[in-house]
Structure formats: C-alpha cells, structure tokens
C-alpha cells in the first residue's frame, strides 16, 4: 500500500477497454496495490496427481473411489473463470486429464463431463475446447458425454431434499444419479469453491434463489469471507445436504497474480517502476486504442489471455479442501490495510465474470464495481459507512443481444421504475425468472438466465446500503443516471462531488485492481 505524496507519479486507473492516468490528492490518499505474483508450481501435473492420491479430509484417494461399472461425473467451472481467460493449458484441462487417466486405469466406462453453468450462458465449442483441451473435448463431446448444466430442464433435474432452513436442493439429474461427482474448480477469488460450486453450478433456479437474493447478499460481509457471508452459509447447507446423497470429490486449484501478457507488463507494475519499455508500451497502447472503433477495441481486449500459472492444487473432502484453498489464495492476494477512508476509487477493467467474449453493459459495471470490487475485503469495507464509491468505466448503454437479452428489459423497464433491490425482487423477479422466452433463450441459445440481471443488481446491495452515493467517472450519463448513480466527467469532478457528501478534504483509497487482491482491512 502506498501513501500518496507530491512525489507520487500519476496512478493508472482502469477504464474499461483503456486506462486513465490520474494524480490523487497528496497527503490524504493511498493506493492499494496487488502483491507480486507467487512463483508457480514447478510441475503442476505431478502436483495434481499427488493431490488426487493424497486427498485432504476424510476421503480416500481417488483411485480407491473408482471401480468398473460405476457412474462417474466430472463437473467443472464454466467460462466465468478465470479472468482474463488463461493461456492453454487451462487448470481444468490438466486436472480432468489426470482424473480421466485414473478412471481409464480403473476401467470406468460410464463417465460424463458437465459444465457447471448454474444460470450462466452455455459455452461455445471454442470455449469448451479452450477450457478442456482438444483431447478431452474430442473424446467426450461427439458421444454426447459432454453436457452443459441446464437449470430449466424439467427432465434433467432431481429434487434430493430440503435443508433445515427449508431450502430446496434440486440438482442436475446426471449428478444425482452418479456414484461419484468430481468437481474441478478454479478458485480465482475467495468467493469461489467449496460447497458454493455445486450449490450454484449444478442446481436449478428453485435452489439458487435461496442464496442469491437481497437478504443473503445484504448480510454477506463480505462475499469473499465465507464465514461472514450469508450467501455462503446457505450454499454450505445445500452442499452438505447434497453430500449426504452423493459422494463429492472436490479438486480446487489456485492461480498466481500474473494476469497480463508481457506486452502489457505495465499493468502488473507500480507506476514508479515503469521502465522505458513499460512507458513506451503504455503510450503506444493508449494512442493505438484511440484509433480503433469501440467494437475492435473490445475484441482486442477480449482476446487477452492471462499467463496465470497454478500455485496450488488440493483434492478430497469439500470443506477440508476449501480451507486449504483459501489459505493458498490468501497467500497470494491478501493485503493488509489500516482503517477505512471517506472515498474509495475502483477502476473497472474490460472484463468481469459475465461478459467473457461479450459487452460490459451498465448492469455488469454495477455488479463488478459494487458487487465484486467493493466486496474484495475481509473485516471492514475500504470505505467508511456513508462514504462515497467512485467507479471509472465508460458504462456504455450497450447490451449483447444474444448473451444478455433479459438485461435489456431489466434496464429499460425495471430500473426505469425503481432501483430499490427489495422492491425489484418483490415485484419483478419471478416474472423474469419464469418468462418462457428467456427460458427458451437460456436453454437453446447462449443467453444468461432471465433472472440473472436481478442477481447482478442484488450483488451490489451491500455496497448500496453501506455507501452514501456512487459516482461513475467517464460513463454514459443516461446509463449512469438510470442506475441511480452520479456521472462525472473527470476524477477531479468526482472527488469534488464526493466532498458534498463526506466533507472537505476527504481521505481517499484507490484500489488498483486487477491484478486481483483482497484487502484485509483492520
């Protein structure tokens, strides 16, 4: 963390498909930087084999769970992870190949792969090939053994029970009827993994709504701190109940912070460390981007592949595995921060979990800023109660018509009427969730579920309650106002506007993310 003074160079602030260089007010600002990338595992394939053979918790080694004649299902995280998408080979490919090697050695014939989409859009063939590798794809997809979870398939779901809180556990039929479920996870942030993987990725809307709602999200302090997250408590109850019906063998992997290729190395470095090459790359990239159209700029950014590398892999019983994963994740991402400030600034990048290969529409801007970035803390939020959140993003009034059809109607119809999450949930959620057209598009096209834009809005409910106001720098004014936020042309203007809320000379924290980090606020 850097205390800003007059000698501090301007800070790079992400702004969608681009960046801004901004000077922060000296003597009352600080910049939280991500830790350096950890050294990766020397031999990830050997580490995966070792993890499968020496599982954590009360769980036998994977080969001991495999036998001829059994039904084995391997579920894996969808395209929302990791961000940016990683260079091949993906962690999922490495782990699934190792699991399949063991399954082949044990003579298991009935093996099916399931993409744990939850309510996300289906993956394209190219995306599946990227995640799984051609060898796995070509062995399973042509035979119909590579499935994508369908949360609206009446024949493909089974109700296995209810938790003591009345939460229905309706899971993918193939999973429910399997002798063993191996779940392969990429834990990019502390929110991922554990029971949340199965209770979100392989369940129906009927189950997911129990933890994805205004109440749970308002009481998740934060989403990245599982013991203090109501969302996770619900997911844990559902996952434990599922574990009573089916044996789950969880494999979780963590990545280092190496998020950008060498051409964009300046994005990984602190500004004062920029050498001639970094400055030349920055100037060339910034000037070059101005010559491109919005569409080509988006394509260019979406083509970035991260040189992420695996830092740990753990396998076995779900909760034991997840505890070890979180420790490894903290080793990479945790940054100690002393106290809260009046204002927090988040520069939002080009990609979030729900716009891989797509457009970052205003709802996703809100979800990324107030949902994800705001929640990247343990202890207390970076900004004090009643403080101001400043987001930097172009926030275009633009939606991907194939991926986000229900978002368009949510933005046009629902937000025009109200921005109150509780009111939105009560009045509109069920209609969107059960709309036959959205359901059809989710099941047969590449659309997110009809209810998904609601979850984007709920994701920010904790921030909306905590902060007094949100200012968006450089955003489309109409789009920003539609969401109930204040638009500002420049960061200086935004800070001026914040002063109206929090008083003269406010203290400022700039959370320079990505690369990803988790603030441990004392």
């Amino acid at each position, binding site marked *: 963390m*850097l*205390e800003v*003074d007059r*000698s501090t*160079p301007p800070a790079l602030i992400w702004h969608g498909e681009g960046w801004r*260089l901004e000077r922060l007010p000296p003597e009352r600002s600080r910049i939280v930087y991500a830790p350096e990338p950890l050294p990766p595992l020397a031999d990830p394939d050997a580490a995966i084999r070792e993890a499968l053979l020496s599982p954590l918790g009360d769980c036998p080694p994977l080969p001991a769970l495999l036998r001829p004649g059994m039904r084995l299902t391997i579920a894996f995280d969808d395209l929302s992870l990791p961000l940016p998408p990683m260079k091949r080979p993906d962690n999922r490919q490495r782990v699934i190949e190792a699991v399949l090697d063991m399954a082949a050695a044990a003579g298991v014939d009935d093996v099916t792969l399931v993409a744990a989409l939850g309510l996300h859009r289906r993956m394209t063939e190219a995306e599946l090939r990227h995640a799984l590798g051609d060898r796995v794809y070509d062995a399973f997809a042509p035979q119909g053994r590579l499935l994508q979870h369908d949360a609206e398939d009446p024949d493909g779901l089974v109700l296995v029970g209810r938790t003591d809180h009345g939460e229905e556990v309706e899971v993918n039929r193939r999973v429910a009827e399997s002798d063993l479920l191996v779940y392969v996870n990429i834990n990019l942030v502390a929110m991922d993994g554990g029971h949340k993987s199965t209770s979100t990725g392989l369940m129906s809307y009927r189950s997911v709504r129990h933890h994805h709602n205004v109440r749970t999200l308002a009481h998740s302090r934060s989403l990245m701190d599982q013991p203090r997250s109501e969302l996770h408590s619900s997911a844990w109850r559902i996952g434990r109940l599922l574990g009573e019906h089916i044996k789950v063998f969880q494999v979780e992997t963590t990545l280092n912070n190496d998020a950008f290729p060498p051409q964009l190395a300046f994005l990984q470095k602190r*500004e*004062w460390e920029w050498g001639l090459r970094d*400055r030349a790359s920055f*100037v060339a990239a910034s000037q070059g981007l101005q010559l491109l159209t919005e569409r080509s700029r988006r394509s260019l950014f979406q083509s970035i592949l991260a040189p992420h590398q695996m830092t740990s892999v753990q396998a076995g019983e779900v909760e034991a595995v997840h505890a070890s994963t979180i420790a490894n994740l903290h080793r990479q991402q945790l940054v100690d921060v002393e106290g809260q400030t009046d204002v927090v600034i988040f520069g939002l990048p080009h990609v979030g979990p729900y716009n891989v290969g797509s457009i970052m529409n205003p709802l996703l801007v809100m979800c990324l800023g107030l949902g994800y970035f705001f929640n990247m803390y343990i202890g207390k939020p970076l900004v004090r109660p009643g403080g101001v959140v400043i987001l930097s993003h172009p926030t275009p009034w633009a939606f991907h018509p194939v991926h986000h059809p229900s978002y368009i109607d949510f933005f046009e119809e629902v937000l025009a009427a109200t921005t109150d999450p509780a009111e939105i949930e009560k009045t509109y959620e069920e209609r969107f969730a059960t709309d036959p057209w959205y359901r059809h598009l989710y099941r047969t096209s590449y659309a997110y579920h009809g209810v998904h834009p609601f979850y984007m809005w709920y994701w920010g409910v904790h921030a909306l309650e905590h902060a007094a106001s949100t200012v968006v720098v450089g955003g489309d004014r109409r789009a920003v106002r539609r969401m109930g936020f204040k638009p500002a042309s420049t960061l200086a203007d935004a800070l001026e506007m914040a002063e109206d809320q929090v008083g003269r000379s406010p203290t400022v924290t700039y959370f320079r993310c990505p690369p990803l980090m988790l603030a441990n606020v004392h």
Partner: protein
Amino acid sequence: MSTDSAMRTVSQLFSSRRPLPFPLGRPTWPSTVPYPPKREKLGTHYDTAWARRYPVRAARAAYTELVTRPVMAAVARPRTEGLERFDRLQGPVIFAANHASHLDAPLILSALPDRWQHRVVTLAAADYFFNSRLRAAYFAFAINALPIERTKVSRSSTEQASALLEDGWNLLIFPEGGRSPDGWGQQHRGGAAWLAARSGRPVVPVHVQGTWRLLPRGSKRPYFGTTKVTFGAPIAPTEPVRSLVGTIEDALAALADEAASDWWSARLRAARGETPPLRGPEASGWRRAWALGPSPKDRARRRAERSERWPRGS
C-alpha cells in the same frame, strides 16, 4: 532580434529544459517507498556465460586468428618455447603465468597450440576489466575473461572457475594478482594453487619475457619489440596448497632463467639453488630499477638506441 539575443534564447531553451512529464519521461519515485537495492551487473556479477556459447566461441576463434595473432606478431614478435610439453599434456589444466603487461594474456593465447587456444578462460580482475559494460563485453569476448575478485576471496568467482574446470575449460591465471609495478615479479597469491588442489588438475607454468618493455603499467601505447613465451612442465597438485604456491613460483623463476639463458644452464643453476629470483634483487628501489636496464618509457633513449644500430633501418 539580434543574433546575440537569438543565441541567448536558444541557450536558455536548452539550459532550462525540463524533463518530459510521465509517462513520456521517467516517473518520480514516491518518497515513502525505499529504493530497491540496485542489481549489480558489473564486476564479479557480470555474467560471462554468453561468451562461452558456440557462436561466440567461433567468432572469438576468428578474432584471435585475424586480429590478436597478427597484432601480437607485429607488436611483440613472440618466440615460443616448450610447446613440445603439450604433446604429453591432458586437459583441462591451469596455466599460471607471470604478469607484467596487458600484452601477456593475448600473447599467451596467441602462442598456445590451436587445440588449447579455444578452450581457455582467462581470469581477469573484476574491478578493472569488468567496470563498464562495454569493457566487460569486450574482454569477455576477446580473451574469454571471467571476473575474479583480487582483493578478497569471492566464493562465487572461485566456484565458477572450478565449475569451468570440471566442464573441460582450461584456466589462465596470473597468480601475482596484477601487473608488475616495476618490472620485477610480485609475491604469488594462492588462487591457482587452491583451484589446482581442489580440482586435481595440473598447473602449467608459463613465463612471458619482454612484455614489460613493450607495454608497462601506466603506458598508453605499446612499443614494438621482441618477446618470448616459455611453457613449463606441468606440476601435479600433490602437495598442500601453501607449498604448491611456492612450487609454482619457483617453476616460473626457473622458466625465466631458461628464457634468459638456455634450458640446461637453467637446470644446473636450479639444482644448485642459484636460480635468480623473479622478484629481483633485495635492494633499494633505485638499484632494482637500475638492474632492469633503461626504462621502457624513455622514448628518446629508445630512438637513440635504434639509430645507433648497425646497419641502419634493421
């Protein structure tokens, strides 16, 4: 505007030129962040591995044949003795030579048989030959130099040298640790003996005669003249390091005597213990200088000597 004021404006423009703003110029360093320790890339930290790769070795072989050898032949007109000793020699070995001039290393390298010449690493003072990038690169290329600390024992240098020996490279070491300040030999340091004892490889003493007169310490340009390079018999490291240091020094003194007279006379003097010491007479400064003859820097005298020669122009 007069010419004077125009000149003044131009000079003011240049004198008051401010650094370019970030990101075009360098970023300022926040005062709250300590500067990272500077990564040393020169001296003993200079990485010479590139100079031992095949393309560089080929280029160096060409450089030695096309530049070093012709230049040495023109400047130093070397006569080489003791080459027959290489017939029974198995590498890698440590060449230990006396050191009076910058000409010593290229002269020895150009005098070595081809088979040996291209597999020699020269241990060179890190503080002198590796104090700038250009100089380090040149010496790493031209004489395959490896930086060593001459004022203290550096583990990394010695370990690197040992590793090179194990890898089949011969080493050229000047045990005196630097060029002679007055033309006489200096006390030997233990590096060559220590490396020999550690690796079990033999030490080949090499005596270079006459280079001090051509390019003494402090001289900027060389004089033309004749030199003699004498290779001695290999010394197996069978004794303790401390006595091996003395053995190498004695062998070099005997070679110097051999170069000044002949092998048999030198052997006889050595047997009687009458080999003239390399370090010169133990006398006052002027007598030591006197014993070396006229100073090589005395150009007027050299010119006079040349003109007195008969027949003229020889």
